[in-house]
């Protein structure tokens, strides 16, 4: 469904050349929950930004269902790939009501008629477990988890096929994180979505992704089915990453590579 072919990208920072991505190749299939894992500086965010069209790659192509994706995209292409960001605190415009925020994609992509917007926003909020009364509220009265739910509702508004989620729960408390992850899985099933999930948290990946790639300094260290990669990591780097996970149960410790 999404094919990443030989993507490379360099950045020039203070007279240094940083090779953020070096010849990345991967294929994401429909209905995958595809995880891209790495530490900071691994290139995972750069890759996500290229898929979203925030950056332009230096070399290589992105294919979305037999169409090449350029940085300048058609409105239709933008509609099909939506985005949930890392930081819930800054993802919502503080001066706009929740209704206003979620209406934006509805208006841009003409999803419904003008007089149906409020109804649709109510429905979207119900999908993410928020009551209609949230519509008139401003972001500063919402908790982190609630903000992230609104961000998810907004991403769903345009009726996309692919959702790119960049550390969507890293800034949330653990119980809230668990609830939001549950919600994401439920929505994926209900709307037949494909997820590209970017994170540094391996325990999350283990439980929600079916495929994973491990990135290190712009290259793919390892890739494959989540289960295989975790039970049988091939690269030393992957092994180190799994060993470093802060586990909380003794039996979990036993599952780590030696």
């Amino acid at each position: 469904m999404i094919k990443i072919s030989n993507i490379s990208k360099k950045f020039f920072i203070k007279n240094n050349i940083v090779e953020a991505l070096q010849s990345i190749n991967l294929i994401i299939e429909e209905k995958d929950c595809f995880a891209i894992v790495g530490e900071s500086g691994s290139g995972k965010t750069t890759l996500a930004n290229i898929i979203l069209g925030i950056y332009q790659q230096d070399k290589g192509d992105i294919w979305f269902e037999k169409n090449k994706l350029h940085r300048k995209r058609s409105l239709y292409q933008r509609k099909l790939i939506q985005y949930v960001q890392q930081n819930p605190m800054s993802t919502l415009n503080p001066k706009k009501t929740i209704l206003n925020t979620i209406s934006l994609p509805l208006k841009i992509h003409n999803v419904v008629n003008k007089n149906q917007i409020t109804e649709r926003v109510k429905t979207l909020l119900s999908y993410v477990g928020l009551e209609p009364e949230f519509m008139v509220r401003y972001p500063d009265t919402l908790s982190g988890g609630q903000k992230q739910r609104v961000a998810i509702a907004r991403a769903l508004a345009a009726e996309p096929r692919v959702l790119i989620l960049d550390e969507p729960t890293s800034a949330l408390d653990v119980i809230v994180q668990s609830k939001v992850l549950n919600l994401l899985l439920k929505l994926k099933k209900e709307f037949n979505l494909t997820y590209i999930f970017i994170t540094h948290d391996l325990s999350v990946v283990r439980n929600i992704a079916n495929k994973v790639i491990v990135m290190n300094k712009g290259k793919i260290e390892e890739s494959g089915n989540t289960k295989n990669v975790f039970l049988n990591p091939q690269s030393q780097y992957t092994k180190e990453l799994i060993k470093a996970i802060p586990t909380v149960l003794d039996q979990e410790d036993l599952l780590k590579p030696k």
Partner: protein
Amino acid sequence: MNIFKTKYFYKYSRNPLSVIGLVIVTIVISLALLAPYITPFPEHVGPFTDFANKSKPPSWKYIFGTDKIGRDIFTRVVFGYRISLTLGFVVLSIAVPIGVAMGLCAGYIGRKTELILMRITDIFLAIPALVLALSIIGLLDRPNLFYTMIAVSMAWWPWYTRLIYNITRSIKTEGYITAAEIMGASKLHIMFREILPNCLPSLLTKITLDLGFVILVGSSLSFLGLGAQSPTPDLGTMVAKGASFLPDTWWFSLFPGFAILIIVLGFNLVGDGLKDMFDVDV
């Protein structure tokens, strides 16, 4: 919704000076609006002479005394407030939209637009407001209030460009702007519906503070003879005309001068109060 019960007013009223400023501004604006109905001699504002009562000191009949040709200074001061406030509002109604639009475009559209617009702005900013206004008026045929307003507007818009430019640049990397861009929102939408609402606290604060300054600049120009012409009552002109008669007929200049002081002070206090309430820097 009772405005006095809101969270904003609560925060604003923590500082007693801000409340005093608000009271001053409210009184002055009310006086100006109701001028024809509350002043004892509204006809003294037009062409009127009463040499029998000229140069009378303050009394119960003429609260601020009369001027050289017998007009009631109190009435003229209150009507003078009308002129000052009109000047302030008109100037800002011109300067603010221009400045804001330029600031948004310079901050958001792209490098080239940014360079061109900000160079132009920098040039205007380098010239002191009063000097610029004087030069512009000098170019026009004869001085009057209207020309003064245009001139002062031209000196004022760059400050708004700079303010809005700075805010735009700092928030254009925020998550919600990126989210709107990815969604496919147009540049116009992002500038005016996403960025601009976030500029409002700073904008409102600056406008309030500027009202005081514009009035001061306008009065200075009038003092130099470039503002409203006789017989229109302009506070700056009144101070100027009365200056040569100090200290004998001190009431010619003192009351108009004091009136200018009060209104500028009022707007400054309110502006400072807003600055604290919104917690911004202009």
